[in-house]
């Protein structure tokens, strides 16, 4: 149920929750949101619910203390250390002992908590929030599992919730739900019809074994995984933001056409933007940002990208992934866009986005170093030894998955989403969304609760 693209969520939890939310008087809606979110979390990971609740209480108490204290800095440092240590500890436990020991969404709610403490410290939160507000902000179900990492200011910017809000007009409620639903449906489509099908191709590629891929298939695989990740996470983010809109929150932009970026640095301002801006505001800028000497900038970037790697996972491939991105970004900053002629810099930047980024996703995808080596030796077949390669494998897979790959590629064109966004209230878009929604539901009906859907042998 904790998956937005789950029939139980779409047809049971979400409608019931939205109705309950709007039936509650405006000043109590934060409680409805909190209780509903705790229920949601409990269904997903009941064993770790106490961890979440404990972290919420501790962080609330510290935020109050920071607000009134003289030695603010010390308190801030202390609570940030507690939060960071908690995250690191659970990451290690989850990796070394057992995956189930990692609380659901811990990477996201801990980052929200740290940003909340820092914002409190910097007096960005003017009015002292109540416990229910803080708790509802940390736990709110549209964001608890995988973000977006919305700031507290986004939570405050809600015009249907809070004590000053009068009776909400039915018209406003319905227009919120309607608009949220549009984004939700588009996100659902990205996830169910594109990402989940590309995931099957990526799985089939694994089944063959990386050492036995033909070189064309290895490259198709890199594109496949890159797009799978993109549409999965972008789709999720659209669904999450859409649910937020239904509940009166502002739309949170988490993906802003990353593949239209001009460089890798630009890419990561557009990809998972709430995470990128978190790193910028709470790590990079406090370290001095770009206003320091060149060697220090390099060091700051290294810190940011090492932590980014760790945040995604503590296996070697994530660290390697972060380090390679660090090297590319440094090279862009000090060589490509500084020393090269402008036209060449533009080309190299685009090359980084369309060739190097997918290669970094391959590193991101494959945890074992020897398997990673196998994969790269098939991407670049000049070294390494291939075993049992069928040179026509890519023709077969293009035949099966070509339509999904094509759909993914076409939707990379930035204008398409913008067209949707501008015209999303037009009747023709409504009809398309309605059809798309029912296609997704049909597909979900035949995969949900049916273990055989993805396991046809």
């Amino acid at each position: 149920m904790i998956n937005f693209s789950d029939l139980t969520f779409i047809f049971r939890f979400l409608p019931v929750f939205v109705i309950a939310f709007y039936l509650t008087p405006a000043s109590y809606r934060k409680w409805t949101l909190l209780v509903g979110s705790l229920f949601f979390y409990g269904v997903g990971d009941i064993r770790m619910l106490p961890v979440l609740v404990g972290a919420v209480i501790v962080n609330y108490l510290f935020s109050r203390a920071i607000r009134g204290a003289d030695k603010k800095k010390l308190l801030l440092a202390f609570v940030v250390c507690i939060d960071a240590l908690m995250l690191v500890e659970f990451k290690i436990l989850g990796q070394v002992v057992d995956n189930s020991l990692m609380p659901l969404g811990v990477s996201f709610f801990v980052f929200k908590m740290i940003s909340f403490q820092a914002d409190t410290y910097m007096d960005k939160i003017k009015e002292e929030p109540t416990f229910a507000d803080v708790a509802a902000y940390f736990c709110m179900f549209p964001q608890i599992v995988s973000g977006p990492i919305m700031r507290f200011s986004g939570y405050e910017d809600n015009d249907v919730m809070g004590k000053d809000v009068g009776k909400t007009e039915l018209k406003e409620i319905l227009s919120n739900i309607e608009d949220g639903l549009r984004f939700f449906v588009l996100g659902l489509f990205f996830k169910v019809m594109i990402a989940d099908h590309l995931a099957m191709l990526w799985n089939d590629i694994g089944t063959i074994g990386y050492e036995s891929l033909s070189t064309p298939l290895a490259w198709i695989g890199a594109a496949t995984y890159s797009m799978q990740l993109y549409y999965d996470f972008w789709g999720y983010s659209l669904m999450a933001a859409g649910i937020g809109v239904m509940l009166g929150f502002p739309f949170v932009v988490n993906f802003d056409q990353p593949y239209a970026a001009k460089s890798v640095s630009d890419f990561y301002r557009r990809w998972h933007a709430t995470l990128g801006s978190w790193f910028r505001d709470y790590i990079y800028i406090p370290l001095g940002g770009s206003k320091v000497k060149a060697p220090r900038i390099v060091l700051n970037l290294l810190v940011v990208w090492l932590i980014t790697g760790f945040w995604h996972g503590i296996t070697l491939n994530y660290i390697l992934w972060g380090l390679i991105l660090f090297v590319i970004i440094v090279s862009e900053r000090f060589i490509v866009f500084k020393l090269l002629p402008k036209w060449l810099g533009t080309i190299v930047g685009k090359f980084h986005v369309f060739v190097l980024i997918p290669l970094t996703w391959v590193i991101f995808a494959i945890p074992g170093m020897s398997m990673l080596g196998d994969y790269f030796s098939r991407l670049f077949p000049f070294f390494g030894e291939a075993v049992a390669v069928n040179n026509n494998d890519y023709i077969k897979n293009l035949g099966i998955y070509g339509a999904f790959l094509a759909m993914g590629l076409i939707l990379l064109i930035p204008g398409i989403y913008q067209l949707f966004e501008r015209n999303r209230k037009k009747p023709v878009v409504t009809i398309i969304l309605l059809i798309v929604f029912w296609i997704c539901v049909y597909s979900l009906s035949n995969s949900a609760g049916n273990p055989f859907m993805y396991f046809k042998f």
Partner: protein
Amino acid sequence: MKLLKNCPLLVATAVVSIILSCVTFVFRDSIYSDYTVDYDSAKAPLFSVMMKGMADGVYPWNGVADIRTIDEKYVSGKDNESLQDVQADNGIVEGETETDNNAAQQSDIPVVSSSEDQDISEEADVSGNDISGNSEEGTEEGTEEETETYEFCEVTDDYFEDALFIGDSRTVGLSEYVEALDSRATFYAKVSLTIYTVMDKPFLKIEGSKTKKTVEEALSENSFSKIYIMLGLNEMGTGNVDTFYAKYAEVISRIRELQPDAIIYIQGIMHVTADKSDKDKYFNNTNINERNAAIATLANNQDIFYLDMNEAVDDENGNLLKELSFDDVHLRASSYERWHQYLLQHAIVKE
């Protein structure tokens, strides 16, 4: 109307949900009764039942689809009566395709079970039927050849020149990643093929034509000296050992009729890894072993043999070796060679 103007998508979604729910409600105990068994109203909307049905071709306007009737036919299990019924049915079908069999019999491979009987005779057909159905009955016909015993021996790849492989995705993998077999043998294999669909599902490409033919048709037109079958994994969640066995017996019997001269190799279903086996309610090695034991009894060691390639890929606990598989079910491309080697070392050669 104002509502529709303000939030058309919401209203339309709600209306469609209600209509679909009503339709499903009306048909829930009739055409969708098979699908309501596992339905939990707390987990999914009612119309998901209808959508599951529609994926199998069961639409509200066309009644019960074929696949269900096939399943129901075997629910009664492998008790002798129903098995004989099935065989009797086959006998009738057989009569109609006599001339095709005639063509198949002209193969130059010596016929083992009734080698002297070269006539286009019903007797030959009947003998084919008996052997596949029940080996004890088969011995009644016995000549000295019947008592001859055969042992597996090692052969070279040339052995597969006139061989046919029938199977699901695993056999597809064998064709894709063992060049030596793919270049010699014929493969009638398809992802998600089952014993229930193997004969009647048109999936074999015809050169220069858009239509496809069934294995049944292809076996009537071509002849093979060796036929290897591995099916059964996709069926793990369907029916039980008895229904599976009954259908398997019927398929073998039919193949026997169509290809009276071929050596038939029934291959045991390949295991899954321990990870998969321990977690999965259906796809586990206990169930696989149960079904393998059942289909192994179809072998008569005269012209139908049972082969278990699991020896070549299992660990000491009888699970598929973890390092041979990525998805816990299929061999990796580089691991198919083990299967190939096993086949090379376990062949029957008749003089």
